[in-house]
C-alpha cells in the first residue's frame, strides 16, 4: 500500500521525490515539489490511493546508504504538527478563500481559522503572492503591514473583508 502510493506520487509531474511510511497508524507521504509550488488538493484528486497526510519538504533527507532518513522525516512531521493550531474550520467565504490560498502556497492541508501564516513557514514572497491574488480575485490592494500584523487566518480574513467593503 505505502509502496503503491509512493510509486504513483513519484510518477506525478508535480512531484520531485517522495517517501511514504506508516506512523501512528497513519499513512504519511513526504513529498518534494518538482516546481516552486505544489497543490496538495490537486495531487489528492489525481491519486487512486491517497495517504492520510502529506508533509511537503524542500528536499528529502537521505541516510548514508541513500535510502530516506526516516528518523529525520519523522522529526519534520513532528515539527509541522507542533506549528499547527487545533483545527477550527473556516467559517465564512473569505476565511475559506484564504485557507485554500494558504494551503496551496504553504503546502499544508486543512488550514484552520486559528493557524498562523508565519509559523507555518510563510515568508515575504509568499505574502507577495497573497497580495497579488487578493488584488486579482477581490480587487483590493492590501498593504504588506496588514499581512504582517494579521498573520492568523481569521484575523487576516476580517481585515481583508473590511478593506473590500470600504
Amino acid at each position, binding site marked *: 500500500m505505502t509502496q503503491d502510493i509512493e510509486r504513483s506520487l513519484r510518477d506525478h509531474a508535480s512531484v520531485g521525490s517522495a517517501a511514504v511510511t506508516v506512523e501512528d497508524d497513519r499513512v504519511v507521504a513526504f513529498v518534494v515539489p518538482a*516546481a*516552486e509550488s505544489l497543490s496538495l488538493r490537486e495531487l489528492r484528486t489525481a491519486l487512486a490511493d491517497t495517504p492520510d497526510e502529506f508533509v511537503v519538504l524542500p528536499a528529502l533527507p537521505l541516510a548514508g546508504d541513500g535510502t530516506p532518513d526516516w528518523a529525520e522525516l519523522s522529526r519534520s512531521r513532528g515539527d509541522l504538527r507542533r506549528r499547527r493550531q487545533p483545527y477550527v474550520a473556516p467559517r465564512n467565504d473569505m476565511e475559506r478563500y484564504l485557507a485554500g490560498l494558504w494551503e496551496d502556497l504553504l503546502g499544508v492541508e486543512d488550514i484552520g481559522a486559528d493557524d498562523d501564516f508565519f509559523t507555518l513557514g510563510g*515568508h*515575504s*514572497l509568499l*505574502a*507577495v*503572492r497573497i*497580495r*497579488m491574488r487578493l488584488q486579482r480575485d477581490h480587487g483590493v490592494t492590501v*498593504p*504588506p*503591514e496588514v*499581512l*504582517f500584523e494579521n498573520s492568523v487566518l481569521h484575523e487576516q480574513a476580517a481585515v481583508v473583508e473590511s478593506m473590500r467593503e470600504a
Partner: protein
Amino acid sequence: MTLALDLTDRVLHSTEDLSEFWRDLRHNNPVHWLDPTDGGPGFWVLTTYEHVSAVYRDTKHFTSERGNVMDALRAGGDSAAKRMLSLTDGPRHAGIRSILMKTFSKRGVEQVGTRIRSVARSLVESALAAGECDFAKDVAAPIPLMAICDLLGVPEEDRWRIFDLTSSMVASETPDHTQKDAWRNKNEVLFYFANMAEGRRVEPRDDIVSLLTAAQIENAGLTEDEIIFNCYSLILGGGETTRMSIGGAVLALIQNPSQWQALKSGAVSIDSAVEEVLRWTTPSMHMARTALSDVEIGGKLIRAGDIVTLWNVSANRDETVFDSPDTFDLARTPNKHVTLGGGSHFCLGAHLARLEINAVLTALRDMVSGMELAGEPRRIYSNFLGGVCHVPVSLR
C-alpha cells in the same frame, strides 16, 4: 581594547570607529568565534585579507545557498535562498549569471554610460549653481538609482518611491528602525517587481525584467521566484552600494586635500582613484557563508553548518597587504581590495559601479575648483551596509 563588541548591533557600526577593534582581531584572533548578546546563534568572524579572500574562492567548503548576510543566516536562512543569483551555487548560478552578464559586462553597461556621464555632469552643475548641496542625497543617490532603473525598466515616476523603500530595507537613516519596517519595505519592492514581471510577460520591452521573463536555461524558463528575487537583488545591489561609495568619496576628498589636488591636477588617473574609493568606502561591510563540511582555517576548526562572516571592512585595511592601509591614497598600486567580493560570486555590477564612480570623479575634477564640508556628515545604521547618507558640502 575589548573583544566583547557585538557585531550584530546595527548602531555600533555607524557610531563607533572600529579600526582598533579590527586591527586587534587581525593580529590576535583572526578567526574569532562570537556569541552575540541577544542569545541567538554565534558565528565566526574572519578579519584578515588572506582568510576573507580564501573563503570567497573556496566553494568546496563554503556555500552561499543558505544566505550571504549575518542577519539572514542567524535567523535560520534567507527566504530567497537558491532563488537569487547571489544565493545560488553551481550550474544554476552559472546559467543565470551568464544571462545577466549580457547587461552587466563592460560593454553591456556602456549602453547607459553616456547617460550616466551626462547626468553626473548636470547634477554637479546644479550643485555648483546652488553653492551648497547634500552630496550624498543630491548626487550620490540619483546616479546609481537612475542607472539601475534604466536597466531594469522601472519608469521615472516610480523611482523615488522605490528608492525610499530600498534605502530602508537593510539599512536606515534612523537608529530606531524596526524589523517590521524593513519587512514591509522589502515586501513592497517584491510586490512591485512581481507586478512588473507579470506585465513584461505580456508586453516585453528592452529591459532586464523582460530579459529574465523570456530567459531559458536548459529549455525551461526561470521560475517566478527567481525573477522577482533577482530584480530585488539588482535594485538593492545596484542602488544602495554605489551611493555609499560616491558619498564617501567626496567626504574622503574633502578630508584629504592633497588627494583632491592629485585628482585635480591629473597626477593620479581616474581609474586608480576609483579603486581607492572602492577600498576606502567598502559599502558591503561583511558578507557571510555557511561551512559545508569541517574545515580548518588559521588553526581553528570550523564545523559543518557554522556561519562564517567575512569582514571586508577589515580585510581592506589589512597592513600585511596594503601599505599604510589607513591612508587614503588615490595612487595606491596594487589595490586588490575585496570590496566587490571574490570568487564565483564576485559582484555582478562591478563594471557599472566603476562606471558610476568614474563619472562622478571625472565631473568633480573637470568642473569643481574647491569643496568644503558645510555641515556634519551622517552615516546609515546597519550591520551589513556602511556609509554616508548625508554629506553637506559647499562647492565652487
